[in-house]
């Protein structure tokens, strides 16, 4: 199955699950936007992980290979991402608290132990 078809398929799946197929048809436009978003997120993630070279070269290679593999195997990322970025209060609180936890852990333990 081609990449384009897979995105069409996954979009249709998502809209089906939401029971929105009638109101939210998969148009040419929405697929091409999804494609653009998908490429943006993959390329930026890979380029951003190049920044790790300032810490360690080997780590960078491992991270990029791993990340590339994960991204390619989970290919249509955008529908999943969009589901996570929804307006539901539960999800927003979850990510807020997750960020707070990561921040405090990194800042507190990161500095005292480095």
């Amino acid at each position, binding site marked *: 199955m081609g990449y384009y078809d897979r995105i069409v398929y996954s979009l249709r799946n998502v809209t089906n699950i939401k029971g929105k197929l009638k109101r939210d048809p998969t148009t040419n436009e929405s697929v091409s936007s999804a494609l653009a978003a998908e490429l943006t997120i993959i390329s930026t993630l890979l380029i951003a992980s190049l920044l790790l070279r300032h810490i360690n070269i080997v780590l960078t290679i491992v991270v990029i290979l791993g990340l590339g593999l994960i991204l390619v195997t989970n290919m249509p990322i955008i529908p999943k*991402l969009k589901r996570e970025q929804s*307006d539901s209060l539960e999800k927003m609180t979850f990510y*807020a608290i997750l960020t*707070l936890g990561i921040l405090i852990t990194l800042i507190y333990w990161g500095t005292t132990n480095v």
Partner: protein
Amino acid sequence: MNEFIPLMVIIPIACALLLNLFHKKDKTVILMGIIVAIVLPIIPLIANYGLHYFGGHAPLITNSTLLSTLPSTIQNSALALFHPAVTYSYGALQKIFIFILGIIAFFAIFNSLSQNKKVSGPLMFLMFMGTAAVTAILLSDDIFHMYIFFEISALTQTGIILTSKTENNYETALKYMILGSIGGPLLLLGIGFVLGAVGSVNITDIVYAISHNLVDPLSPTLLFAFGLIFFGWLYTSGLPPFHTIKSGVYSKALPNASVLLQAFTVIIFIAIGIAIFRIFSYLPFFKTLIVVFSLIAMVLGVTMAIMQTDFRRMIAFLAVGELGYIGLGFGLATKLSITAGLFQAVNELVITALLFIGFGTILYLTKISDTRKLGGMIQHNSIVAIMVLIGGFAMAGVPPLNGFQSKLMIIQASLQSGFPEISIIAILVSIVTFMVFMKAYHSIYLKPKPNDLVGADKLVPRSSIAAIAILLIICIVLGLFPHLVTDNISQFAMGLI
């Protein structure tokens, strides 16, 4: 005249309170609203740079007669240098931002007055109160004072959504408040930790205490405080993970009010960002954190924007994504990058205001914000359509407009600091921004008109056209002569590092 400094905050607050008294008398509300809205951008132009101590309580060191009567423990300690009162500092940076905020507030207020048949006293009250609060945040040199005025501005933002009568505005408002009530008190807690460590909430004092080793810079208290204040900053400025709620807030307000909401966010972002930068930039991972969150904001902002079908939500997500560029300026922490970031903030204020007002005319004409149900609006008023198009070019960074200048500066700054990856991502995001804008523009203005699209028998309000035209002129002038703003900002950036 330094007396003008507190007046920048007092005049809009007083106006807001008086408007509430005249609630029902429409003519008084209109007259007063317009007069004060005209005065707002003028005050920063005539005020002199300087400091203002509330209650006249200058630091003890400036008053030697009083200092000599005090115990020697105070005379010889840092207490003599500390600021006992809330201090407002007014400089070149504040001048630019308060001036631009004044212009945007004027357009937001003027357009709301001229486009709503029934004058809404509460909306005017909220707009003036929010403007006053944001001005105070920008002027204040006191981190607790910033927190208080931030909470006031958050309340006014909620109020502005509540007055809009759009669908599900109450739900969004409550979500924003619940999330805000987790973020806000944690910010307060962080300020409490700083207060516990240093004993003062004045930023200059805190910086003095940390740089002179009066407190241990790497003590767990300060680290914890940094974590909490940074989290609070993410919330106040709508960086991830708060970007979804922030974009929801923009899209639930009426477009003329969204103009003001995004201006509030940008100014709070830079004001608290500068405060954090001054206090905590000595921490080793400080810059990394800001860069990481800015990159996430940029990428999530544009990728989510492109997936939306509501044009208000698209611009809202784009506005959140553009914040990332400002953050990059802080994160790279060179003189050029901070100048670029703050210049980008000025540009974003103007451009996003232009786009909200411009696309707001569509909502005014058709009452539809779903791009799939719109089309062919260019034949209705092609001049507005072309002006909006140029505004979108400015946001995406097409030369010779202002967005191009600031983004180019950011890219140069990141290349100079040895991070070519960041400049590549900045360019990529800018391209996708362009695509998002073109998608919205095409489906609203260029696509064939759907048969069931009715309405559009009204004319585009003159006040909107005037606002778009003037904001566009600002965009072009800043694009051709960026040094009008960057000269002042780079002086400030020099002092910051």
